[in-house]
């Protein structure tokens, strides 16, 4: 074995060992590296108790209610399995929309209401012109309609 082969072997082993160490450390920290908890995790008591944390999910369509004072907003965060009602006083980001992603930081009250101190919008990785989005929406609506027709008029065999 030439010296340079030896050095190459040593470096490869070193980097591989580091990689394995990193994987193990990250695995151990996995629970602490989450940026937000989903409503299902909160329901399963996996979220920290008695201190602020973040929850993330979708803003449930039709759930956003502005209170008469104009700055307090109430909405529901859902991961389609569980839901958490959120109360927030302050300005919402531009991309905050019903049916879209949201991450909010705050404290869970004893009443089950999440009192948020910060609301962030989480957008997805899809970029398309408005016309394409409109076409998609229409196709989706048509598909949903078709699905509904199937459900409401099942082929009755009775």
């Amino acid at each position, binding site marked *: 074995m030439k010296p*340079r082969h030896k*050095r*190459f072997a040593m*470096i490869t082993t*070193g*980097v591989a060992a*580091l*990689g394995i160490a*990193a994987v193990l450390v*990250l695995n151990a920290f*996995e629970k602490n*590296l*989450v*940026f*937000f*908890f*989903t409503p299902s995790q909160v329901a399963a008591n996996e979220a920290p108790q008695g201190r602020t944390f973040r929850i*993330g999910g979708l803003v449930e369509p039709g759930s956003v209610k502005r209170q008469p004072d104009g700055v307090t907003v109430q909405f529901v965060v859902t991961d389609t399995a569980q839901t958490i009602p959120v109360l927030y006083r302050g300005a*919402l*980001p*531009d*991309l*905050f929309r019903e049916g*879209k992603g949201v*991450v909010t930081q705050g404290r869970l009250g004893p009443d089950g209401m999440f009192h948020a101190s*910060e*609301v*962030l*919008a*989480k*957008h*997805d*990785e*899809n*970029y*398309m*012109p*408005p*016309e*394409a*989005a*409109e076409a998609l929406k229409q196709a989706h609506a048509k598909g949903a309609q078709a699905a509904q027709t199937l459900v409401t008029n099942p082929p009755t065999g009775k």
Partner: protein
Amino acid sequence: MTGHNWTRASVNWFKYSSPQTFFPLAAKLVPWFGAAAALLCVAGLYIGFFVAPTDAQQGEAYRIIFIHVPAAWMSMFIYVVMAFWAGAGLVFNTRLSGMMASALAPSGALMTFIALWTGALWGKPTWGTWWVWDARLTSELILLFLYFGFMALQAAIDNPRRADKAGAVLALTGVVNIPIIYFSVQWWNTLHQGASVSLKSAPSMAATMFAGMIVMALGFWMYSIAAALLRVRCIILEREHRSDWVAQHMGTLK
């Protein structure tokens, strides 16, 4: 016999592994890469600002993607290339490899800084915040500190060969961070969205948007090569200043 002919016909690339022969080659290559960078960036920005459509969700704010994503790609790619040269220097004990690694670091740091900065500018209008400590953003910030650490460590050691070796160990250690940055959005809950472009699936964006991003990425690539070659020429002159050929070269300049 044919093998013999083939070797004679092909370029002897190892010839360019010596600083003395690489120095004039780099000078010849720089204008080409520089011109390609300028052309591609102008074309990419034109596509990005005038051809690509508005985004349905984010409106015009998304257009910063044409700088942000290519810079972020380059920040990771340059690090891998830098670590490769640093590792090659350790293994083969070649002088030029270490110089290449040192020449790449500032460009990598610049790309990382641009990615972080444009990300902050993009985050404020869309997410509602300049910065969050999620896995993607934090690991990219660590990348910036790795570049800074590499440069500071090399600057702190007077003997260039020892500086190269110490830097190489740091650079190779930091490689671990690259897959963490790339896969952070898959492994953990992050505020940062997932990748729009991957090798496995079709890009989840309109074709003209994708084209603008790719052209910009190529432009950044060409720029980084040109900048690294310019920088490596300076490093070669600095480190070989006692040799005859540098004295001769400087003499012809006078």
